[in-house]
């Protein structure tokens, strides 16, 4: 590379100030002014025709994406709320069902108790009635037995004594005796 460097450094020869000097120092303000004019023309045209519409489109897209996301968020929030309401409803329904079952149980218990109580009181009544009836039957039976015994006794006594007594007097006498016996 050394020869190359030497040739570079020697530049264009004696009459010029060297290539580096010419690159740096050549007077070229015309190009600067053309550059500024060209740049601003390009900027104006691009701003008007390219960057403007492009930025507007990007902004519009950004906005629509943002809105879509917000709408999605809202929809999700709504769905969450609906789901929560539904859960709440189910929870309430469950509690209500439990209450209904509990009440039904209680009512059933009560009915059962009532029936039992009623049955037992009816049974008491029946037993009581049976007792009364038994008592009556017993009294009637005793009365009948008494009558039979009196008649039989009279028969036996009449036959034994062979004395023709007035049946009515005898009957009265036996009854008096029996009454005394009962008392």
């Amino acid at each position, binding site marked *: 590379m050394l020869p190359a460097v030497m*040739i570079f450094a020697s530049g264009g020869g004696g009459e010029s100030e060297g290539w580096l000097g010419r*690159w740096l120092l050549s007077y070229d*303000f*015309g190009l600067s002014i053309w550059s*500024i004019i060209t740049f601003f023309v390009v900027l104006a045209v691009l*701003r008007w025709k390219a960057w403007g519409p492009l930025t507007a*489109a990007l902004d519009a897209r950004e906005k629509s994406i943002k809105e879509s996301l917000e709408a999605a968020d809202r929809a999700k929030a709504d769905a969450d709320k609906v789901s929560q309401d539904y859960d709440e409803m189910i929870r309430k329904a469950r509690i209500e069902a439990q209450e209904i079952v509990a009440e039904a149980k209680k009512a059933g218990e009560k009915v059962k108790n009532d029936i039992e109580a009623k049955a037992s009181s009816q049974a008491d009544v029946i037993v009581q009635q049976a007792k009364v009836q038994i008592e009556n039957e017993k009294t009637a039976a005793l009365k009948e037995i008494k009558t039979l015994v009196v008649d039989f006794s009279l028969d036996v006594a009449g036959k034994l004594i062979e004395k023709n007594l007035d049946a009515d007097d005898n009957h009265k006498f036996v009854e008096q005796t029996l009454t005394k016996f009962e008392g």
Partner: protein
Amino acid sequence: MHESLGDIILHHVTNGLDHPLVSLHFWGIDFSITKHVVMLWISAFLLTSIAILATRRYRKNIDAQPRGLSQIFEMLIEFIRDEIVKPNIGTGKEARLWTPMLTTFFAFILTCNFIGLIPFFDFVPGGSSTVTGNLYMTGALAVITFLAIITAGVMKHGFIGHWKNLAPHGVPIAVLPLIIVIEVFGMFLRPIVLMVRLGANMTAGHIGMIAIFALPMILSQLPQGAQLGVGFVAVLLNTGIFFLEIIVSLVQAYVFTLLSSVFIGMAINPEH
């Protein structure tokens, strides 16, 4: 005819001031249409044509979906806006104001850099050189940045407020003159650095490539076979450098845009 290698290289990297295509002189300034002006206009024409073509669908329908070329332009403007303008200058109104200009900076510099890389333009009258390698062109862009910095500062803080911001708050009175001198110096230095960085980078690659192509000529004492070999190596080397130059073109366009927006941002938010 003997032309030194230096002259050949110069012919490629400098403007053809001695051979203007159209000679124009106004108010003592040479407005001649030189080859760099032609390159400038070719770049401007190509950029605007492609950009207008690419954004055609958005002018017809604001809800258009990106496709093909328009995707590239969407990426470009989004990149400039989100990665360069928003972090350095600010979001909202300021981003909206400065994004078009900085996108144009990037796209225009990149187009000029790329057009300068196409050897085909050697066949165009006055063609084949990189206008962004001319310090007067990069200087003009730097002047635009310089004015943009002042405009941004004045718009945000008012005319007096902008110049007051040159001196940071809370500096002791004793060192204030020194700070002001440094700040004013820096104010002019920034665009100068922008100018030299872009111009020197774009020129350097071209000088390098032409010098490598000139290797067989430099080594003219060698036998012809060896010269052919050197020429083959030179082509291989330059193919590699060409790809490097594509990267340099992108990086320099990016750096110019980024630094411009950093400087504009510094005028808007002076305390940071």
